[in-house]
């Protein structure tokens, strides 16, 4: 359970995953925030109003899936690095995961990186499609192509060069 391990349970992930038809139609946000903490930057960063305004800043974020464009500004802004974007429409076999990244080295476009799950285990390799830093504050958003079935698993990447980090 999350409070013991730091890893959200499959049930918790299910709660924040959009309905199948949305997930398969466009890039869309997955907010993996399961604890009421006083925080609202995901909402203030959202340009389309998809992350709804907070009635109480301690509430969990709520998403209007129809409004989300998958722009990933919230991915870059979330202080807890708990927001991701998943795009299942990328290709037949692969999906795109957009995730926050604050380490060195920064991967380059086209680079093959290791993809890690929520427990820090390498589950696949992935190809970096895009690297951007929307707020120029050190948090990069990495778009990485991963096998479709791992789109809801991959949540971190590791750059491996010359056999080492």
């Amino acid at each position, binding site marked *: 359970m999350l409070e013991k391990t730091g890893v959200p349970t499959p049930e918790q992930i299910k709660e924040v995953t959009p309905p199948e038809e949305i997930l398969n139609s466009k890039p869309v946000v997955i907010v993996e925030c399961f604890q009421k903490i006083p925080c609202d930057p995901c909402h203030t960063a959202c340009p389309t109003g998809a992350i709804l305004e907070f009635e109480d800043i301690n509430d969990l974020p709520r998403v209007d899936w129809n409004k989300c464009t998958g722009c990933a500004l919230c991915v870059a802004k979330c202080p807890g690095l708990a927001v991701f974007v998943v795009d299942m429409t990328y290709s037949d076999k692969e999906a795109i995961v957009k995730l926050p990244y*604050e*380490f*060195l080295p*920064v991967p380059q476009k086209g680079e093959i990186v290791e993809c890690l799950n929520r427990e820090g285990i390498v589950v696949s390799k992935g190809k970096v499609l895009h690297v951007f830093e929307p707020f120029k504050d*050190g948090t990069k958003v990495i778009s990485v192509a991963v096998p479709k079935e791992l789109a809801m698993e991959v949540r971190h990447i590791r750059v491996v060069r010359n056999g080492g980090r």
Partner: protein
Amino acid sequence: MGWIGEHPILSFKHGRKVKFYVDGRECEGYEGEPIAAALHANGIKVYRRSVKLGRPRGFFCAVGKCSSCFMVVNGVPNVRVCITPLKEGMRIQTQTGKGEIR
């Protein structure tokens, strides 16, 4: 150990590089930064020996509160090296016991 070169979030602006001496050994550090930081970057972790049992003591709180990091600096004992800025040519000694005031 050593200085962090590149960092994903921070860029370190160090001052002038200066030489200083620890128990006679020549070391390099940045002027104006705490002596303790320079010692650590030079791989020196033991700063003094405790009064009764001679146990090794080093850095602990970094805010001048805990007395763990007392050293003899330019002949003055009980200097909190975690909050004392490094200067060129400082002579620093591992402190044993309570230190002697001359």
